[in-house]
């Protein structure tokens, strides 16, 4: 005989529980925690180098990659506190991976924690890590249609950095379209135009990232 059992449980309940634990830790330390998500090569690590040079050990970073410590090497050199997570094939970070990585970080001076997710516009968007909010990074070389094509990330991101903006004259990137699509996906999204080469928009982005009220007031 077949019996139906009501479950009504989130598929990622276990990840969500670990994320809540991470959040409790962030809040107990007074840390702003931001989940940074983008395609590979959009400039996440360059943005973090800029922040590291400004903030030193006040910036802590968990950086995720399939393999290598190239990103952590660069971020460490900039002066920030950083730990590399090598997922060995996993295309996203999970809350449990972040919890394990946090144990390796000296957070005594940190006020901003950025979790630099694995370069991927799909999977990282749906795994909560306990962050206060997500920032999407989109470089102009990737094409203006990316927000519309990858809505899972852009509906969740409370901020978007349109990066490598100095390359705009050389690529067919419709800035107006990209920004308009970002707003259709999330009318409250804060959009920045940034360049790690010319430093355009970088101070503004840095101020936003380090302003606790910008993140803690936001609904997850």
């Amino acid at each position, binding site marked *: *005989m*077949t*019996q*139906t*059992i*009501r*479950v*009504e*449980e*989130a*598929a*990622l*309940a*276990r*990840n969500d529980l670990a994320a809540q634990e991470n959040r409790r830790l962030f809040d107990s330390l007074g840390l702003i925690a931001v989940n940074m998500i983008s395609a590979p090569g959009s400039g996440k690590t360059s943005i973090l180098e800029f922040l590291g040079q400004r903030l030193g050990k006040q910036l802590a970073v968990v950086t995720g990659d399939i393999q*290598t*410590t*190239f990103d*952590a*090497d660069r971020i*460490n*050199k900039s002066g920030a506190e*950083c*730990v*590399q*997570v*090598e*997922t*060995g*094939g*996993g*295309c*996203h970070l*999970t809350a*449990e*991976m972040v919890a*394990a*990585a946090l*144990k*390796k*970080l000296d957070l005594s001076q940190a006020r901003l924690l950025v979790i630099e997710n694995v370069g991927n516009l*799909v*999977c990282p*968007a*749906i*795994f909560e890590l306990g962050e206060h909010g997500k920032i999407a990074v989109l470089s102009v070389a990737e094409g203006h249609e990316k927000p*519309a094509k990858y*809505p*899972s990330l*852009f*509906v*969740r991101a409370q901020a978007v950095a349109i990066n490598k903006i100095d390359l705009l004259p050389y690529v067919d990137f419709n800035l107006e379209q990209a920004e308009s*699509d970002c*707003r*259709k*996906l999330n*009318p409250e999204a804060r959009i920045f135009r940034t360049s790690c080469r010319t430093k355009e928009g970088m101070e503004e982005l840095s101020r936003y990232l380090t302003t606790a009220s910008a993140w803690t007031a936001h609904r997850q």
Partner: protein
Amino acid sequence: MACLSPRRVTKALPASSRHNTILHPVKRIKPSVPRACNMHELSIATAIVETAQRHAEGKPIEGITVRIGPFSGVVKESLVFYLDLLLEEKERPKAHIEIIHAKANATCPCGASFQISSAMTPCPSCGDYNIRCSDGRDCTIESIEVTS
């Protein structure tokens, strides 16, 4: 997601030999993730089967019903593929899998309340895109069927 718990956490010293200019030691961890676990639907399917088995309390699982919202980021075909694989391995072949596409509830500043099934949908009343969604991100195990 027991498979995602870290196997070992190491501080890598010295830094990669390919980067011989590195001045700082690099902390790194390598969580134990199966090599094939590189799409999020497999992680989700694994979690769903674990949850289903917990609720089944040892009884054979005949079917699983999952509800996904339009912003869940879950591809139905991919989820069914992995659920089939896992159930065949851990339970029994031909378990019934049903995926229900739920709509998201949205409101517009014009006062309209409506349901949407995809992102970038304008308000049906005024045509504005400035709408707010209160849900639609969920991937929920609704029920399971077991042999009693």
